[in-house]
C-alpha cells in the first residue's frame, strides 16, 4: 500500500482537497456568507503554530532529553493569558490602521517609516529561512522514509544528491506553486485570505487526528498503555534518568526558562502567527475564545509525544533517527494505512506552515521592501502607470518562490547538522528580536524610529553572529576553528561563548546577548534623540488606541489640499476600478454624501480613507508615498502635532477635574443633609426643654399660689396652721430660686459663657472642707458620713468652686436617698494612672441599670415617674457632668454593693492629674 505512486497520488489528492476547501471558502466569502467567522475556526487556524517541528520534531526532542519539547507549548499558553491585554490591543490597532503584516505594524508605529519596514522584512525573511528548511527537511525525509518501505533506513545525506533528484527541491517547488495558487489568486484590499484560513483550519484537524491516531496506536496497540511504556523505560538503565530529566539531560532550569520566554515571543511575532492572529482576524470576540481553545489544542497534540518517544527508544536500536519515530514505528509493524495517515498528517503540518509563512513574508517583501523602492525610482515612472495590480501580484509570486528556494538553500547548506527542533529554535530567536520594538511600541510612547532601528539591527547582528554563523560553521561551510577558537583566534569573540560566557546552551546564550543588545539599543537611542512629528502622532495613536476610539485615526492631524478624482484614480490603479468605485460609494454612503466622485469634498477624511485603503494593499509606508504624490500636503509641524495632542490630553484633564468637582459636590450635599438633620434634632430638643422647664417651674408656683390664696381668703386661720403654710411657701420659693439658678447656670454652661477660674486644686482638702461644711445635711437625716482619703494625692487643674459644686451635688443626692437613721455615705479618693477618682458611695436604693446612663441627662431622674418623684430639679447631675467633662474627666454611676453591703449607688468622677508644665505655670 506504500508504493511510490500511491504515496504521490495521495499527497496530490490531499493538496487538491485543500484547494477545494479554500476555493469553496472564498466563494462563500464573496457571497457574503463567510465560512470562517467562528471562534473555533479561528482557534484552529492559530494551530498553524504546530508544524512539522511539532509533528516529527517534538518526539525527536523528547527522545533526546525528555521534557525539552514542552516549553515550546507552555510558553505560548502563558503568553495567551496576556493576550487579553496585549493581542487585543494589537488587533484593534491593526484593524484601525489596516495593517497587513508585522513589518507594516512596526513601520506604522514609528512614523510609517519605509526604512524600518524594510529592515523588519529582511530580518523576517532571513530569520525564517531555517524554519522553512525544517519543513522541507521533514517532508522530504518522511517521503523518502515511506518510499523505502519495508526497509527502515534513515534518509541519505542531501549533500550527495544532485539537485534534480533531491526530493526536498521538488517539495519546495510544488509548495511554491501551491502557495501561489492559494494566496495570490487575487488582490484583496484587506489582505483577507478566507480560503487559506479555512484550509489551514482543516489541516489543523488532520494533523491532530493523525498524531492522536499514531499516539493511541503506540500506547495501546504496540504497548499496554502509558504505565507499560514508562515501566519498561524505568527498567532500562540508559533511559531511567530521562524520567526526571530536569537539571540533567533535560537541560538546566535557566535554559528551560529562556526557551519558555522565546516561545512566548514566537507565538506573537512569527510572521505566520501575526498573519492568522491579527490580519485574518474577522472579529475581536473570536480572540477571547481562542485564549483557551488554542492552548487546549497544543495540550492535545502533545499528550502522546512522550509515549511515542519512549516507545521508539525502546523499540529501535540506539542511533535510529528519533525525528522519524512517528513514521517508523507504524512502518516497523507493517501498519501501512496508519503510516500513510501519519505521512499525510506531517504533510499537512508542513504545508500549513509553509503556505501561511510564505504568504505573510511575500506581503512583507512586496509592501515593505520592493514597492517603496520601486515607487521612489524616478526612471520607472510607476506613479503614472494605470494599473498596478498585476505588478503587485507578480512581485508577491516572485517573493514566494524566492523565499522557498532560499529555504531550500539553507537546508542544503546548514540543515543537515541539526535536529528539527534545533533548526527551528534559530528562527524563534530571530523573530524574538521584533518584541522590543513591537511591544515597546504599543505600551511606551517614548519609543522612537531611531531606537527601533538601532534595537532591531543590534539584536539581529548578535543573532546572526551567535546562531546563524555557527550553524554554517557546523555544516563545514565556514572553518570550524571559527567556532572553537573565535575569529582570528580571539577567544573572547567565540560566537557561542561571547565575552567568555560559556556553559549556556547556544539558544539561551544567543537570547541573552541579543535581547541585551536589542532592548539596550532601543531604549538608549529612543531616549537620546527626540522623535519627529509623524512618529509622535503614530505613537499616540498606537498606545492610546483604547482611550480614543472616537478619533478617526490620524484624520484630524492632517492639513492639505487634494482633488477627489485624483484620489480615486490613485486607488483604482492599485485595487482596480470596480473595487475603487465600490470603496468610494461606501465612503459616500457612510457619511451621507452625494456622488459623483468629482463632487466629494476632498478633505482630510477622504485623504485618510484612501490612504488606509491603499495601506491594505501596499503597506502603510508605500501608501504614504503614493498619497503624498497626488496631495499637496503641508506636513504639520512638530509643534502643531504636539499642540493637538496636548489639546486632547487637556480635555481629558478637564473631564477628570469635572468628575472630581461633581464628587466634591455630592460630598458637600451629604454633609449639608447631615447638618440639617442635626439642627432639626436640636430644635426639637429645645422645644422639649422649654416645655419641661415651664412644667418644672409651674409645680412650685402652683403650690405657692394655692397656699397664698388660702392665707388670703381665711384670715382667721389658727396660728400654727398659718405658720405651717408660710413654711411651705418659703420652701417652695427656695426651690423655685434654686431651680432658676440651675437653669441659668446650665444655659451659661451650654452656651459656653461660663468664666472658668482655673487653678491647681488639691482634692483632698476640697473634700475635707466640703464634708465639714455639709455635715449638717447628714445630721438632719441621721446618716453616717465617712471619708477615706489617702495621705497625698496629686493636684488637678480645675475651678475650685465648680468642683465643690459637683461634690456637694453628689453628697446632697446621697443624703436625699438614704433611709433616715440607717444611712451610711462613704467618700473615697483614689489615684490611678494619670487620674484622680472620687467615689461617693451610699446604701440607698441604688440606680437601676437602665437608668444609669440617662440620669445624667437634663430633667431626668431615677425611679419610676408614676410612683412619685424624688425631690430636686433633675439638673444637678447634668451640670456636674458638664463641669467634669470640661476639665477632661468622666462621671458615671455604678452599683454601690462592692463591699458586700446592701445595694446602694456609687457615683464616681475622675479628673486628670495636672501635668508638670501646668504645675510650673501655676507656680
Amino acid at each position, binding site marked *: 500500500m506504500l508504493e511510490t505512486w500511491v504515496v504521490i497520488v495521495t499527497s496530490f489528492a490531499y493538496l487538491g482537497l485543500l484547494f477545494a476547501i479554500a476555493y469553496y471558502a472564498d466563494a462563500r466569502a464573496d457571497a457574503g456568507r463567510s465560512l470562517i467567522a467562528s471562534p473555533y475556526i479561528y482557534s484552529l487556524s492559530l494551530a498553524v503554530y504546530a508544524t512539522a517541528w511539532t509533528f516529527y520534531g517534538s518526539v525527536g526532542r523528547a527522545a533526546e532529553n525528555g*521534557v525539552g519539547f514542552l516549553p515550546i507549548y507552555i510558553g505560548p499558553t502563558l503568553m495567551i*493569558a496576556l493576550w487579553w*491585554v496585549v493581542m487585543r490591543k494589537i488587533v484593534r490597532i491593526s484593524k484601525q490602521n489596516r495593517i497587513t503584516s508585522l513589518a507594516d505594524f512596526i513601520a506604522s508605529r514609528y512614523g510609517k517609516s519605509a526604512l524600518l519596514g524594510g529592515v523588519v522584512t529582511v530580518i523576517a525573511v532571513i530569520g525564517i529561512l531555517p524554519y522553512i528548511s525544517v519543513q522541507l527537511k521533514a517532508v522530504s525525509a518522511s517521503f523518502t522514509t515511506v518510499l523505502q518501505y519495508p526497509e527502515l533506513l534513515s534518509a541519505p545525506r542531501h549533500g550527495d544528491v544532485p539537485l534534480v533528484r533531491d526530493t526536498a527541491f521538488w517539495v519546495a517547488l510544488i509548495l511554491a506553486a501551491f502557495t501561489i495558487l492559494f494566496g495570490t489568486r487575487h488582490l484583496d484590499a484587506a489582505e483577507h485570505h478566507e480560503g487559506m484560513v479555512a484550509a489551514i483550519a482543516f489541516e489543523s484537524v488532520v494533523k491532530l487526528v493523525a498524531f492522536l491516531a499514531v499516539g493511541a496506536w503506540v500506547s495501546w496497540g504496540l504497548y499496554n498503555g502509558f504505565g507499560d511504556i514508562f515501566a519498561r523505560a524505568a527498567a532500562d538503565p540508559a533511559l531511567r534518568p530521562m524520567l526526571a530529566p530536569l537539571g540533567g539531560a533535560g537541560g538546566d532550569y535557566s535554559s528551560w526558562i529562556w526557551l519558555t520566554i522565546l516561545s512566548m515571543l514566537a507565538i506573537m511575532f512569527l510572521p505566520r502567527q501575526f498573519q492568522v492572529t491579527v490580519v485574518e482576524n474577522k472579529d475581536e470576540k473570536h480572540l477571547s475564545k481562542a485564549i483557551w481553545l488554542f492552548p487546549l489544542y497544543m495540550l492535545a497534540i502533545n499528550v502522546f509525544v512522550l509515549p511515542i518517544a519512549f516507545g521508539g527508544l525502546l523499540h529501535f536500536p540506539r542511533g535510529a533517527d528519533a525525528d522519524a519515530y512517528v513514521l517508523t514505528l507504524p512502518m516497523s509493524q507493517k501498519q501501512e494505512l496508519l503510516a500513510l495517515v501519519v505521512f499525510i498528517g506531517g504533510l499537512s503540518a508542513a504545508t500549513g506552515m509553509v503556505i501561511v509563512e510564505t504568504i505573510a513574508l511575500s506581503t512583507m517583501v512586496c509592501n515593505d521592501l520592493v514597492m517603496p523602492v520601486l515607487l521612489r525610482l524616478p526612471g520607472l515612472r510607476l506613479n503614472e502607470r494605470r494599473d498596478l495590480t498585476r505588478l503587485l501580484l507578480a512581485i508577491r509570486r516572485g517573493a514566494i518562490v524566492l523565499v522557498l528556494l532560499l529555504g531550500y538553500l539553507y537546508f542544503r547548506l546548514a540543515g543537515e547538522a541539526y535536529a528539527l527542533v534545533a533548526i527551528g529554535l534559530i528562527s524563534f530567536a530571530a523573530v524574538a528580536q521584533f518584541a522590543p520594538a513591537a511591544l515597546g511600541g504599543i505600551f511606551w510612547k517614548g519609543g522612537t524610529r531611531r531606537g527601533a532601528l538601532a534595537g532591531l539591527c543590534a539584536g539581529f547582528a548578535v543573532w546572526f553572529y551567535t546562531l546563524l554563523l555557527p550553524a554554517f560553521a557546523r555544516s563545514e561551510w565556514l572553518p570550524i576553528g571559527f567556532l572553537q577558537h573565535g575569529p582570528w583566534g580571539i577567544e573572547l569573540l567565540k560566537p557561542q561563548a561571547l565575552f567568555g560566557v560559556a556553559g549556556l546552551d547556544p539558544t539561551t546564550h544567543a537570547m541573552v546577548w541579543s535581547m541585551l543588545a536589542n532592548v539596550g539599543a532601543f531604549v538608549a537611542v529612543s531616549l537620546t534623540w527626540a522623535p519627529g512629528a509623524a512618529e509622535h502622532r503614530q505613537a499616540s495613536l498606537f498606545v492610546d488606541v483604547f482611550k480614543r476610539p472616537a478619533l478617526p485615526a490620524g484624520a484630524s492631524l492632517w492639513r492639505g489640499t487634494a482633488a477627489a478624482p485624483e484620489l480615486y484614480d490613485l486607488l483604482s490603479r492599485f485595487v482596480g476600478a470596480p473595487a475603487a468605485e465600490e470603496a468610494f460609494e461606501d465612503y459616500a454612503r457612510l457619511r451621507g454624501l452625494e456622488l459623483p466622485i468629482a463632487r466629494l469634498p476632498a478633505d482630510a477624511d477622504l485623504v485618510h480613507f484612501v490612504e488606509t485603503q491603499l495601506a491594505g494593499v501596499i503597506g502603510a509606508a508605500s501608501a504614504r508615498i503614493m498619497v503624498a504624490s497626488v496631495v499637496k500636503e503641508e506636513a504639520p509641524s512638530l509643534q502643531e502635532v504636539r499642540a493637538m495632542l496636548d489639546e486632547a490630553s487637556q480635555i481629558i484633564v478637564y473631564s477628570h477635574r469635572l468628575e472630581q468637582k461633581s464628587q466634591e459636590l455630592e460630598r458637600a450635599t451629604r454633609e449639608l443633609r447631615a447638618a440639617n438633620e442635626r439642627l432639626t434634632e436640636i430644635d426639637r430638643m429645645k422645644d422639649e426643654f422649654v416645655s419641661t422647664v415651664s412644667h418644672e417651674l409651674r409645680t412650685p408656683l402652683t403650690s405657692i399660689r394655692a397656699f397664698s390664696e388660702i392665707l388670703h381668703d381665711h384670715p382667721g386661720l389658727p396660728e400654727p396652721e398659718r405658720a405651717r403654710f408660710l413654711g411651705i411657701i418659703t420652701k417652695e420659693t427656695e426651690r423655685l430660686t434654686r431651680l432658676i439658678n440651675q437653669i441659668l447656670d446650665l444655659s451659661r454652661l451650654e452656651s459656653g459663657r461660663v468664666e472658668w477660674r482655673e487653678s491647681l486644686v488639691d482634692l483632698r482638702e476640697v473634700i475635707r472642707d466640703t464634708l465639714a461644711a455639709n455635715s449638717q445635711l447628714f445630721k438632719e437625716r441621721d446618716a453616717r458620713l465617712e471619708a477615706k482619703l489617702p495621705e497625698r494625692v496629686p493636684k488637678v487643674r480645675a475651678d475650685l468652686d465648680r468642683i465643690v459644686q459637683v461634690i456637694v451635688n453628689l453628697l446632697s443626692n446621697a443624703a436625699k436617698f438614704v433611709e433616715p437613721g440607717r444611712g451610711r455615705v462613704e467618700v473615697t479618693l483614689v489615684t490611678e494612672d494619670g487620674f484622680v477618682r472620687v467615689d461617693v458611695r451610699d446604701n440607698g436604693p441604688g440606680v437601676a441599670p437602665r437608668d444609669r446612663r440617662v440620669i445624667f441627662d437634663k430633667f431626668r431622674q431615677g425611679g419610676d415617674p408614676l410612683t412619685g418623684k424624688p425631690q430636686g430639679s433633675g439638673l444637678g447631675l447634668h451640670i456636674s457632668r458638664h463641669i467634669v467633662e470640661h476639665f477632661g474627666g468622666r462621671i458615671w454611676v455604678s452599683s454601690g454593693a462592692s463591699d458586700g453591703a446592701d445595694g446602694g449607688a456609687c457615683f464616681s468622677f475622675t479628673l486628670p492629674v495636672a501635668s508638670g508644665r501646668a504645675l510650673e505655670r501655676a507656680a
Partner: protein
Amino acid sequence: MEKFDVRGQRLAALFLLGVLLFSYPVLAAFNVQATLAGIPVLYAYFFIAWGALIALMALVIERKA
C-alpha cells in the same frame, strides 16, 4: 479600555500562576524518580498543571462578566 477590566486582571493573575507552576523551584520539586499511576511524576505534573491552567482560563473567559 474599561476602567476596571476584571477579566484582564484575572488572566494576568493566571499568567503569574503559570509562571510559578512552570519555573524553577516548583518544577524541581516534581523532578523525582517516582510514578503516579504508572506515569513519571514530572510528566504527570506537567500535563495536569497545564490542563488545570487551561481550564481556569476557560472559566475566566466563558463566565458571564
